[in-house]
């Protein structure tokens, strides 16, 4: 049985009070509750403060490029479908630099989890607006306030019919851990967009602000009703709903490859007889 201790404790490079701490703890808790051992888990991240998270717990890690966690995560999953693959990064990384990959990953629907530490600002590069920053959000790079309207990842994912879409909050640890566990167990690409306070660069969306705005969806909310899910997903302002907003069952992308039914690619030997036949086809 896995325990929290097995996932280790590490010093981090985060600011004291950062929302990332809550997310890290929730992640460990979720992995334990899923009964996963560290060697079964592959965390794939991009670049940013959030993307450092995989360095702070025991697991296999591929910390790739800014914006590119999803392609690398999908490649790894396709090479070894037995791995539990979690792509993890900030909102800038996933929705900005990696926006095209985000859409494509939702469309493919591999069995993997996407955790987005959504602090609505670029942390690592010191406070520029991100795709999810509020319109008017003032930064050194946007002195007149962010001009573009914010991206609503949850609404986009529901609209696209992604297979699992949830929103959590770094300040509600148990609730978040439960959402992460559901996402990991879900067969399909599961998005958890996580509201994350950045104490250094986002003075608008603070712990206090989130406490005032976030509410948890109750038991009687049915995440399989598409119309309701769309309405809920579009609700983002005065009140921000947390919980599993939409889920459905869809065919897995990897199931379309007969070869993957035989397990990880590295375990399979080359079939010379088949190759000989392939060559004969060119005669």
């Amino acid at each position, binding site marked *: 049985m896995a325990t929290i201790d097995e996932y280790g404790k590490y010093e981090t490079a985060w600011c004291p009070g950062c929302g990332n701490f809550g997310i890290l703890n929730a992640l460990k808790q979720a992995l334990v509750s899923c009964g996963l*051992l*560290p*060697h*079964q888990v*592959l965390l*794939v991240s991009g*670049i940013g403060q959030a993307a*450092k998270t*995989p*360095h702070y717990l*025991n*697991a*296999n*890690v*591929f*910390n*790739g*490029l800014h*914006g*590119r966690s*999803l*392609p*690398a*995560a*999908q*490649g*790894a*999953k*396709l*090479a*070894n479908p*037995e*791995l539990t693959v979690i792509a993890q990064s900030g909102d800038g990384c996933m929705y900005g630099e990696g926006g*095209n*990959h985000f*859409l*494509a990953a939702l469309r493919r629907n591999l069995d993997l989890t996407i955790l987005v530490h959504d602090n609505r600002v670029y942390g690592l590069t010191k406070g520029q607006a991100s795709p999810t920053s509020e319109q008017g959000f003032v930064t050194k790079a946007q002195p007149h306030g962010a001009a573009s309207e914010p991206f609503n990842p949850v609404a986009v994912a529901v609209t696209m019919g992604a297979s699992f879409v949830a929103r959590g909050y770094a300040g509600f640890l148990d609730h978040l851990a439960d959402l992460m566990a559901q996402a990991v167990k879900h067969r399909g690409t599961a998005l958890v967009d996580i509201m994350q306070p950045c104490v250094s660069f986002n003075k608008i969306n603070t712990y206090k602000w989130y406490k005032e705005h976030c509410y948890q969806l109750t038991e009687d909310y049915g995440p399989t009703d598409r119309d309701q899910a769309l309405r809920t997903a579009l609700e983002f302002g005065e009140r921000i709903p947390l919980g599993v907003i939409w889920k459905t069952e869809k065919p897995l992308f990897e199931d379309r*490859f*007969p*070869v*993957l039914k*035989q397990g*990880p*690619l*590295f*375990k*399979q*030997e*080359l*079939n*010379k007889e*088949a*190759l*000989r*036949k*392939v*060559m*004969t086809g*060119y*005669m």
Partner: protein
Amino acid sequence: MPQDVNIVIGGEAGQGLVTIGQLLSKVLVRAGYEILVTQGYQSRIRGGHNTFAVRVSTERRLAPRGSIDILVALNRETIDLHREQLTEKGRIITDSGFASDAADTIGAPFTDLGPERLWNTVAFGLLGNILGLPPDMLFQAVEGMIGKKHPETLPENKEILDKSYQWATAHVPQDLFTMSGGQDQGDRLMLNGNDAIALGALAGGVRFCSFYPMTPSTSIALNLITHADVMGVVVEQTEDEIAAVNMAIGASFAGAPSMVVTSGGGFALMVEGISLAGMTETPLLVVVGQRPGPATGLPTRTEQGDLEFVLHAGHGEFPRAVYAPATLESCYRLTQTALQTSERYQTPVFLLTDQFLADSYRAIPPFDVEKISPVRTGTDQHLGPQRYKRYTVTESGISPRLLPGVPDHLVVADSDEHYEDGHITEDLEVRVAMVDKRLRKLQGLQGEVLPPGYDGEGSVDLLLVCWGSTLGPVKEAVAVLRQQGRNSACLHFEQVWPLIPAQFLDFLASAKKVVCVEGNATAQFAGLIRRETGFAVSAHVLRYDGLPFTARYILDRLPI
């Protein structure tokens, strides 16, 4: 004298010229001749001027020829565009409607011989006759191509074929280009460069390929897709090239020998990923099929203009190897070598080809499947009880590579500078140790460089230096020079990085004159040689009009 006939079929896309060319190629191969097929097409699906050229010979030919013996013109434009290329004996075969009464033109009554939709059969019958190919072989080829899909059309096709053949017997001089001396060579593979690369990739153990379509490389991926299920390969067309390279790196990290295939513009998008493979020490085969740039350039033509780009692509410093195949055989062989090198040195390795090599066909003896040694990853997964460190500093710079997902160890890879265990660090001493470790792999790579091929004896008056697909035309040019009594030689590089001066400097230094022949405007390879050896070649023959080199093109421009 070996026989050597160059047939060019020209017309609009959609007129069936490819069908004629393919039928003809099949018959010529079956009759035991050597062929080289090149296609010139514009970047559009219908219309435009397109050509299908078959050079047939009793000897192996690796280069196209500029001059034409038989020009099959399916439209008037073809005649206008190519008449000047006709050899002295050369003939134009065309519909009498387009024909002038020039002596070099054979105006056949295409309309009487068959309906327009079957003019390809008419042209095939005429051609078969002029080349002296037996009629039953011609029909067998037609049967082979359409018999399965449209058996009901066979009788009509046969009738038209016979009629056209007989018309030619009656109206065309029978000794113009009659082929003889074909050798029975058993069943041969009919491949183009991209087919050979795909077969090489399969034989080399590739398990994963991601790509975004781009001429001239797409058909490598299409080949792999065709065989994916039986060969156990996962191929994915991604949302863009950035995804393609990062996905392949992820797959390789998790244990699948992986490749991407692309061309200049797509490769430009992959460049950050190349650096990631270098930093994370993830094996990756990158096939770059060159076409003329900058930007979109001439999408369907050829060039060797991306050598410097591929040599330097990726920020930061990390080792790499670059192979540049010349022939189908070397496409197949070097793809396997590249996969092995990449796996052994855990770094990106490149195969640099071009549109000419990618798209030109020859018939070659089947490859020996028994001889292959495909890459396997993760065969030794147990290091014992110590904590696994993905980037253990070693003398060779190569760290033992375990795969994620196996009990008892964790694998941590990072694009940030990292400790031996793979975790992020900004410790500057570790930084230096890691840079040194990664670059030490270059020494091993240098020890395995394939020496350039030298074709010549002793010191020569004229040495032609080339790389990649330019070998064929250069060899042919050298043969002509030798016939003219000029003491000349060819030095060809099939690995263009790293370069080991000791392997070739003597050849350069001992030749009276050294000319570098390459398909770009700035003499990139000559520049590389100079940078690495200090040796300056005496002259260049460069080509960058989008067309492949021919022996004649080179001979006409040699500073003699």
